[in-house]
């Protein structure tokens, strides 16, 4: 198992390095932060001064060397826009994103696995049809639309929930509900499909023939075997959330990392872009590691 994890770690590290180099050149070659930060009528002297203060006048290769050495020391510098350490800016918003992602994924996984298993066990029943219907709606409705409709319905018309922002537990309801829908539909379908396959397999037939009852058949024999593809999908969906739920963050004014990244890319706030990428990449790397461990725990064949 450790050799498998080691291999994974090495390949993740290599992709991270490629990413770091790409980020530097793509962001620097596509726009001048001085032009974006300063007002349009700022003079060339002001722009030059701005570049000088932030080390943007150096040759690109010199900047690249600084970039790499700073990175090794885990020093991301200050945000151009916010005049405070970039890493601090990113960690602030990442904490929000992490909470949002964890709560949403926990709820989604529990609900989708429970409902998906039941649907698979009663293929063609009303429950099965309901589950399929829900997942279809979830996978096809655009989330910005659901978010706006949710605000109009639950905040403006009914007055039950706050429209947006943070502060109380009620502020979390709408963003989580909107984020819940799409992965729920997707994971539900995977659980259902995978369970149906597992239920039709020889070992389940054998267990049934031995007189094992329904509940142990689902939870002991089938679920564990059916979980491998499900975990893959859960991992994918969680990674998407860790990158920031841009639409939901934008609409609900949620101070997460997705909107921060978009804003800093538009403003070419290099240090924040870099810090945000490193933090989210690290988080996704750790999450993939957890998934690998979960695989290994579920399926002994993978451990070797």
């Amino acid at each position, binding site marked *: 198992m450790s050799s498998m994890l080691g291999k994974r770690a090495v390949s993740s590290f290599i992709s991270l390095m490629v990413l770091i180099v790409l980020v530097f050149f793509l962001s620097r070659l596509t726009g001048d932060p001085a032009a974006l930060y300063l007002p*349009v009528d700022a003079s060339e002297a002001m722009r030059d001064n701005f570049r000088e203060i932030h080390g943007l006048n150096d040759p690109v290769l010199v900047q690249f060397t600084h970039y790499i050495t700073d990175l090794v020391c885990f020093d991301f510098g200050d945000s151009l826009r916010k*005049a405070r350490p970039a890493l601090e800016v990113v960690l602030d918003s990442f904490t929000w994103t992490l909470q949002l992602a964890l709560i949403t994924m926990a709820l989604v996984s529990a609900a989708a696995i429970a409902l998906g298993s039941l649907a698979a066990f009663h293929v063609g029943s009303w429950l099965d049809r309901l589950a399929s219907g829900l997942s279809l709606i979830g996978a096809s409705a655009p989330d910005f639309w659901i978010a706006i409709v949710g605000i109009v319905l639950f905040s403006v018309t009914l007055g039950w929930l706050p429209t947006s922002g943070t502060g109380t537990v009620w502020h979390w309801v709408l963003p989580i509900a909107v984020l819940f829908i799409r992965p729920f539909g997707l994971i539900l379908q995977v659980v259902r499909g995978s369970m149906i396959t597992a239920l039709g397999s020889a070992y389940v037939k054998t267990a049934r023939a031995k007189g094992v009852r329904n509940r142990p058949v689902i939870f002991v024999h089938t679920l564990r075997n059916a979980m491998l593809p499900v975990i893959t999908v859960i991992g994918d969906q969680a990674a998407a959330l860790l990158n920031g739920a841009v639409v939901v963050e934008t609409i609900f004014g949620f101070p997460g990392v997705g909107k921060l990244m978009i804003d800093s890319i538009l403003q070419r706030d290099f240090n924040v872009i870099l810090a945000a990428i490193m933090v989210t990449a690290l988080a996704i790397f750790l999450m993939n590691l957890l998934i690998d461990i979960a695989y290994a725990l579920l399926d002994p064949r993978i451990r070797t």
Partner: protein
Amino acid sequence: MKHTTALAGLLLASTTLSPAMAQENTDVTVVLAEEVDLVEPCMATRSNIGRIVLQNISETLTELDVRGDKGLMPRLAESWEMTGEGTWRFHLREGVTFSDGTAFDAEDVKHSFERAGSDQITCEISRYYEGIEITPTVVDAQTIDFATEPAQPILPLLMSLLTIVPSETPIEFTRDPIGTGPFILSEWNPGQDIKLTRRDDYWGEAPEVSGATYLFRSDAAVRAAMVQTGEADIAPSISATDATDPALDFAYPNSETTYLRIDQNVAPLGDKRVREALNLALDREAFIGTILAEGTQIATAITPPTTLGWNPDVKAWPYDPEKARDLLAEAAADGVPVDTTISLIGRTGNFPGATEVFEAIQAMLSDVGFNVELQMVEVAEHEQYYSKPYVEDRPILVGAQHDNSRGDPVFSMYFKYHSDGRQAGFSDPKVDELIEAATAATGDERSALWSELFAYLHDEVVADVLLFHMVGHARVSERVDFTPTIATNSSLQLSEIGFK
């Protein structure tokens, strides 16, 4: 049945509770479109920062009256006069203290000026003082002289932009702004909110508002909904499509002017007939009340009608596609390559409906025979076309917005039209002369020179395709008494807010 009663009860409770609670408090909540990531006094000319800082936390020596017609009013300076060639003397108000308890005096003004212009930080305010040699001299605690070279007739107006900080303020961006204004920054949760609280020891009249919370939501529909549900009191900027409630919504000129900048260096745009045809081809009236909000004005100048020297005699271009076709044919006969593909550059999200506006313009131009290709780009790419050095491999029209609510054309003219201006699309010696003369002039002479320039640019040079003076929409809750004006785009004085 039981459920419906319970729900109705809940609804009733929630609707009856909130107004009762609202009556008692004198705090307001303002919801802004863009997160304010810096509360630095010397950046207050940036509109989102200005709305929080300007005259709330930090004050200026003078203040431009944009609501009435009082012109330039005293604020931290009680009076000012020109004492000699290019030297202005300001007499400062006595008994003013900063929120940290220190007294306000001439040294603070000197330090604020020098700090804003320092090359160790990039203060936006300093751009208004560029190209002028300004030397502040402290005469006594309540008097300061500013010697200007060349003589600066509008220095008192420029002083309406310089926010005053205590002389101890370090020359780096502060996260704890100290000012003489009626409010202090009491809480700041980055990404979430900023809170201001009223001071007890303010020198002037105490505002009715006791505290303000600023929230940030990028979605206009959400901002409008927040005022509707009582989560916010003022949303200074919502979109026209959300401004559906006449009881809450106000339209106000937002001081932005939309126009197409023409780079005359590339054929066929160097030909005046072609530029006239561009102007004649557009049915500007057709945009108003359809894609753009009712109340939008057709522009004849780059600055709004409230600007000094704005010329009422300049007439907007009529919609005359026939004449446009004739002019193009005439130019073509003289060998001007009128069928060259012209790139129209627009910026996505520049203003609500920007894409639709530029698509309509493209269609109207094509209709008279222009060959126009529309390119909608993001802000960083837009900047590459907007400012010098220009992309000159093909003829380009740059769609853009310009904001000047400062009352004087000087803030626009040099960089939009002077040969050395960063965004000038042409070079004309008479324009340069007029700009230089007007910049140095005072009083009626100044106004007359600007008027002459406005007419010359519009009728003789046909410098650009001027489109619209834009309208913004604000939503204000029923419990507060506040009317947005052209100033709402750059500041939001809490002392101007009352309660009904």
